[in-house]
């Protein structure tokens, strides 16, 4: 391997900041070798929370970011920190919970209904684990509460401030409900006794965007970032995303061009 120090600043190294969900699910490990083979760039992946990924981009410490927080992404571009934003893939959010489903989410007609049911009795028996970390998932959750017209404040709601995988572990221990992206769920579902209790509502879409960090603010490897985005949105890249399966299930739906 070339040393990181040599590679850094040289044009052949691309640094990608991405959320833990894409990295933990194994997608990036699947994509990186193909990208490197096709383009000759080498990719370094820094898997962090959404907020930190955006912050690393703002400071010019990475060249390209891949996250799922549409509003923040738009602001990132609007503020001039990034260019060439593309939605490249999507999966969706689902609500998982204990098998006996105490809040009866299984009968909910819409996402708004499901979230209203959670709060209804304000019962201690109904527990809900919230990411509480301002991540894409957490932002989605807050939107859903707002859409349901309820105040998410009862003693059964725990804000854990951790990543998706850890939050699932905590939900498992507490036998609580959890909003989770399908990719992580498919990847980790064998480790829990929780089950999917609500899914399929159109408002639960989870689009992933890729953004090149603006070369105007920092001496980033813009060419490399561009190459990554181009590859990801190309036919080959999109096919690679669509090809990725875990236990026979596809994790992400390619979206470029939609």
């Amino acid at each position, binding site marked *: 391997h070339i040393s990181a120090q040599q590679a850094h600043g040289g044009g052949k190294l691309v640094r990608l900041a991405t959320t833990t969900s894409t990295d933990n699910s194994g997608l990036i490990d699947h994509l990186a070798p193909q990208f490197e083979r096709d383009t000759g760039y080498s990719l370094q992946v820094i898997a962090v*929370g959404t907020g930190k990924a955006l*912050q690393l981009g703002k400071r010019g410490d990475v060249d390209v970011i891949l996250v799922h927080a549409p509003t923040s992404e738009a602001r990132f571009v609007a503020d001039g920190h990034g260019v060439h934003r593309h939605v490249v893939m999507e999966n969706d959010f689902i609500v998982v919970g204990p098998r006996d489903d105490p809040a009866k989410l299984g009968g909910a007609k819409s996402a708004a209904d499901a979230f209203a049911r959670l709060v209804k009795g304000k019962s201690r028996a109904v527990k809900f684990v919230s990411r509480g970390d301002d991540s894409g998932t957490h932002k989605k959750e807050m939107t859903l509460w707002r859409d349901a017209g309820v105040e998410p404040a009862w003693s059964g709601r*725990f804000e*854990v*401030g*951790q990543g998706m995988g850890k939050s699932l572990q905590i939900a498992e221990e507490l036998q609580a409900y959890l909003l989770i992206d399908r990719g992580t769920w498919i990847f980790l579902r064998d480790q829990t006794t929780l089950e999917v209790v609500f899914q399929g509502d159109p408002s639960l879409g989870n689009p992933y965007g890729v953004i090149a960090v603006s070369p105007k603010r920092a001496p980033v490897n813009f060419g490399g970032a561009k190459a990554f985005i181009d590859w990801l949105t190309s036919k080959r890249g999109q096919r690679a995303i669509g090809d990725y399966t875990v236990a026979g299930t596809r994790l992400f739906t390619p979206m470029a061009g939609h």
Partner: protein
Amino acid sequence: MDLFEATAQALVLLAVFDPALWEIIGISFRVSLTAICIAIPPALLAAFLLAHLEFPGRRVLISLFNTLLSLPAVVIGLTVYLMLSRQGPLGDWQLLFTRSAMVIAQIMLAFPILVSMSHAAFQAADQRAWETARTLGIPSPQAFVMVVGEVRFGLLAAVLAGFGRIIAEVGASMMVGGNILHFTRNIPTAIALETSMGNFAQGIALGIVLLIIAFALNLSLQYFQGRGKLSL
């Protein structure tokens, strides 16, 4: 840089006793002080015995404690997690994601460093201290306390190192506490959260708050260590 701003803001919150800030401060110090207080007596005793008793396997045991210093906190966190988890052997106690679980993990974290450092302190003690105490007819338990008094400077350093390890530690607390707001979120896990959210300035500001309180604690402890310099 907004660092100064964030620090100033955190200090203001500290000064006006902002309930949210003081809650996590309270959790941090309550948990870590409890853990260190529980860990100290057995650790000192173990260190003393390791320093003063000759028995087979003594050196290996010392090496073992020194090695445990290199055990990542998250591994200890995992171990405690697996014990306390619903499916674990102690699952019935229902301690996971409580402050008690954090105390348990922190005791395990502090123990090796306390033993290793205090052992070095006892080893450096003048053998005559123990002998003189015994020869003055002082029973072993009190003689032990007297030797502790003689090497209190080194022991205090050990305790501070142990306390520093657990008050600043994030992996195990995150793992067994869960960083749950109002319950188990302490300063380090809050810092980790702020960092993961990209709020670097807030993270550092919280770190400075922790430091300031630790410094106050430290100064108030200083009188224990006395002058520290011995003539002859």
